[in-house]
């Protein structure tokens, strides 16, 4: 007998319900508003009163309206057909809704129950299996999609029977398993998992050991992110956060990319599903949309579903990770999620923490980031979830609770800087403040030395040092004046400008410059360091400036040309020519 209740209080989307039976924390319920069912989640229970957050507008709701509790938490439906999907935060399929406007209480199934898939068993009767073990496989577009023992199955099972190869829809029982007590459990191609719980059905979670290429030089060379790693991009508005994140989504070396548009602009999501079906994945040549899942709860959609959107996105990544794939999760922006928590905490009249955020903000964030990672599955395959979140600090001030909490949880920090953006130095990632902890991992260092070149780490550190030194020199020149400092100061400053303009800056809208493979990054950095490692003779700082500006111009033309093409060689030759005019 399901617990029922009645509405007794309403403040915006926080509703108090008088319940007539047991109610669980995070349990879902439906509130009946004149025949329309509004989904809500229990966030607090006091006596027989439950406070619930409603995932829809509560306009028109009345005290006394009927509530039915569902005896389950918010779950994601996991099965073939998720790829290329566009879902809202509660995983409703937005593509199957007919109306131009979102209707309250309209819930659509995330998966197509009619469509059939070509099933191939991977396990046999008598096999011993446990949660997340692969039972069979269907072809989901380009991707062999594993049908697994549901994550919720605890303990050990024996396969009693498994379906023969054939065309089935997702509701077909493809296997029957026996638990340790001999009870039978049917398995279909769909399983449900409560999104707020991490999927832990794997053998181990080793440290990341390989970088994930993004084609963005300031990331891959200067501050690489690892496969299964975590990173975050804080920055004031207008600093290119979204452009950078989209570049990573387009070019990131991953099998599956899940984009959670959390409380952000709807037109940014439109850009993804308008352009991705046409754009090509630089690593595989397939259309980008074929590897992408979009979860969008844009800023005008119900605030309570923002939190759900990031958890739903993470759960989908964990699902594909259990099949042995490399997933990349991008969440834009985690600050909006934190603000949703703040709005609710405020309405519940909880004692506020810093900037009125709830006091457990930090633990919620670190808990979420910890769900990323590289895992070894029970069958020896590996999978990874790489997570990059953006943070939108109020007033661009990084000393605020969301940024500070995230800094403790994420291993890479890509600080977008207003001053760089003002000068149109994109991506506006501050080269000195940003960091990647992965550069210090011996596993990663070794992998880079093996795949890029021997001495690569030393070169990167050297380049970083040129940039840092150049910045110090710039400060001196600003204080003392062009004439007040020795020539070597100007030279050091211009070397850092050379690295900045020719390597760190990158045109995200240029078809060639926007994607820079590691091999090309290595070539360019070696070339640029070769220039920086020499000392030069200049008569005055004017000559120094002019000379370096010409070098910068040539190197930028190289960046705009196809690697190794005739144009590229032409600029490369004029660079050699230019360099021979000055040098030690």
């Amino acid at each position, binding site marked *: 007998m399901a617990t029922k209740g009645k509405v*007794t*209080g*309403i403040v*915006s989307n926080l509703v108090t319900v008088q319940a007539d039976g047991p109610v669980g924390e995070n349990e879902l319920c439906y509130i009946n508003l004149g025949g329309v069912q509004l989904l809500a989640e229990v966030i607090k229970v006091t006596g027989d009163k439950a406070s619930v957050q409603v995932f829809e*507008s*509560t*306009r*028109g*709701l*009345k*005290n006394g309206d009927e509530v039915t509790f569902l005896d389950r938490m918010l779950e994601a439906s996991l099965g073939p057909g998720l790829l290329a999907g*566009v879902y809202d935060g509660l995983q409703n399929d*937005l*593509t199957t809704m007919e*109306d*131009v*406007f*979102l209707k309250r209480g309209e819930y659509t199934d995330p998966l197509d129950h009619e469509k059939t898939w070509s099933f191939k068993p991977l396990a046999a009767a008598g096999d011993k299996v446990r949660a997340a073990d692969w039972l069979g496989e269907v072809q989901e577009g380009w991707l062999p999609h594993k049908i697994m023992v549901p994550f919720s199955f605890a303990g050990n099972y024996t396969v009693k029977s498994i379906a023969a190869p054939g065309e089935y829809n997702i509701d077909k029982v493809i296997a029957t398993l026996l638990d340790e007590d001999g009870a039978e459990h049917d398995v279909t191609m769909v399983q449900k998992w409560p999104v707020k719980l991490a999927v832990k059905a794997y053998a181990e979670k080793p440290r990341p050991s390989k970088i994930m290429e993004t084609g963005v030089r300031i990331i891959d060379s200067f501050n690489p992110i690892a496969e299964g790693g975590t990173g975050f991009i804080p920055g*004031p*508005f*207008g600093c290119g956060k979204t452009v950078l994140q989209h570049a990573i989504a387009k070019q990131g070396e991953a099998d599956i990319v899940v984009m959670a548009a959390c*409380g952000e*602009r*709807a*037109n940014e*999501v439109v850009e993804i*599903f308008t*352009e991705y079906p046409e754009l090509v994945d630089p690593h595989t040549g397939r259309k980008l949309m074929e590897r992408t899942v979009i979860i*969008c709860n*844009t*800023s*005008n*959609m119900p605030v309570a579903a923002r939190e759900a959107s990031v958890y739903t996105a993470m759960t989908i990544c964990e699902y594909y990770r259990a099949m042995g794939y490399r997933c990349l999760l991008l969440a834009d*922006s985690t600050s909006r999620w934190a603000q949703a928590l*703040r*709005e609710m905490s*405020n*309405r519940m*009249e909880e004692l*506020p923490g810093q900037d*009125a955020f709830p006091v457990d903000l930090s633990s919620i964030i670190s808990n979420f980031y910890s769900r990323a990672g590289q895992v070894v599955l029970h069958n020896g395959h590996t999978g990874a979830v790489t997570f990059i979140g953006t943070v*939108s600090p*109020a*007033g*661009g001030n990084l000393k605020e609770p969301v940024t500070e909490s995230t800094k403790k949880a994420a291993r890479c920090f890509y600080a977008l800087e207003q001053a760089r953006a*003002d*000068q*149109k130095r994109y991506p506006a990632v501050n080269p000195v403040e940003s960091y990647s902890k992965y550069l210090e991992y011996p596993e990663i260092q070794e992998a880079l030395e093996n795949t890029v070149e021997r001495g690569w780490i030393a070169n990167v550190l050297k380049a970083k040092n040129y940039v840092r030194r150049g910045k110090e020199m710039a400060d001196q020149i600003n204080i003392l*004046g*062009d004439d*007040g400092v020795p020539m070597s100061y100007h030279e050091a400053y211009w070397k850092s400008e050379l690295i900045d303009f020719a390597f760190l800056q990158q045109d995200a*809208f240029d078809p060639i410059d926007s994607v820079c493979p590691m091999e090309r990054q290595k070539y360019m950095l070696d070339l640029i360091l070769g220039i920086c490692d020499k000392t030069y003779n200049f008569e005055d*700082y*004017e000559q120094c*400036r*002019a000379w370096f*500006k010409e070098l910068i*111009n040539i190197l*930028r*033309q190289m960046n705009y040309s196809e690697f190794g093409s005739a144009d590229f060689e032409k600029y490369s030759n004029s660079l050699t020519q230019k360099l021979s005019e000055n040098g030690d």
Partner: protein
Amino acid sequence: MATKAYQRTYTKLQAITKATVSLDARGVSNEELASVNGKLAQVVKTNGDRVTLQVFSGTEGVPTNAEVSFFGAPPTLKVSDQLSGRFFNAYGHPIDGGPEVEGELREAGGPSVNPYKRRQPSELIPTGIAGIDLNNTLVSGQKIPFFADPDQPYNQVMADVALRADVDKIILGGMGLSNDDYLFFRHAFENAGALNRIVSFVNTTEEPPVERLLIPDMALTAAEYFAVDKNEKVLVLLTDMTLYADALSIVSNRMDQIPSKDSMPGSLYSDLAKIYEKAVQLPAGGSITIIAVTTLNDGDITHAIPDNTGYITEGQIFLRADSDSGKVIVDPFRSLSRLKQLVQGKKTREDHSQVMNAGVRLYADAQNAKTKLQNGFDLSDYDLRCLDYAKDYATELLSIDVNISVTEMLDTAWKLFAKYFSPAETGIKQNLVDKYWPR
């Protein structure tokens, strides 16, 4: 709001603050409208039988035995073609002496467009102002505010933009507009002979601040009628959103909510997003473009209102007085149109984005030179050329009194580059230099 036959009436208030009243009442639905001694109010909270109402015109003179009646419905607006050319107050009542509008009753502040049903904005909105068209190109379906100090002529610029833009309807939502500015808009629209394609909802400074909260919803309900039902291109002007946010903070304060940054309610981001996200390019061809004004306190964009706005809108147009040219200019560093790449080089000439970037980069070099000059250092030859360039660039391109086509703007920029710099110093792609560098 017309009164209805089946009203429930109450006559005992339990609490009164400056913006809200509370009473015991039953069967009240969330966000429904009510009248408190004839003043319009809206349900914002219920707790058991205790109902809290936000009184839009303020509670001055409301006694504890005030007569409260509930209407059973949230705010609505009657929509039809009769809206065209009319001026209304925040409640949708005519203030131009004309008759009430007849039409279909629509709920204000209704649901959002399914993001999957949106189309990517792709139509250029030319304004003739190079600081906008060249550096921060506007696109239909975009939402973008002017960030300006109160002393800048933002309402004039907005009126210019609106009247030059090629749209079917212009909807003005005036919040806390001074009577002078209200008359300015009225005259500007009348003089342009554009009155029949304009609808205005106006709350002036003479009227109570909380009433302003209704203005954006009213204006956007009318906009949705024209864009969705009539497939028209609609431009919505909202001025001044800072005063709107101030009204939000008054109400949340009276409801004892814990304020977040700058005494603004914690929900400010969502509240503003609900308005701005109504900007849309619809599949059937209609569109809503929103141009708003957010006034700043001494150029401070870190204040919660401009800060939250900047995260929601697709860029911002930043106005400032420029001492080099003696004009008000569109600041090229702080201004941004996030959708510009959807039209630049696609609906405009191929060299657009490179010319724009080079122009701004050189202007930034001029600012550095200016800093050096102010610190008393000698300037290099390059610095001096940058300074001269900056003056011309501000006068001929950034100033808000410019009114030329995009192609003329690009030609002007090339002319200035050639006058002061070598091609290498501009850093523009060689193939474009070969084609467009003036000889």
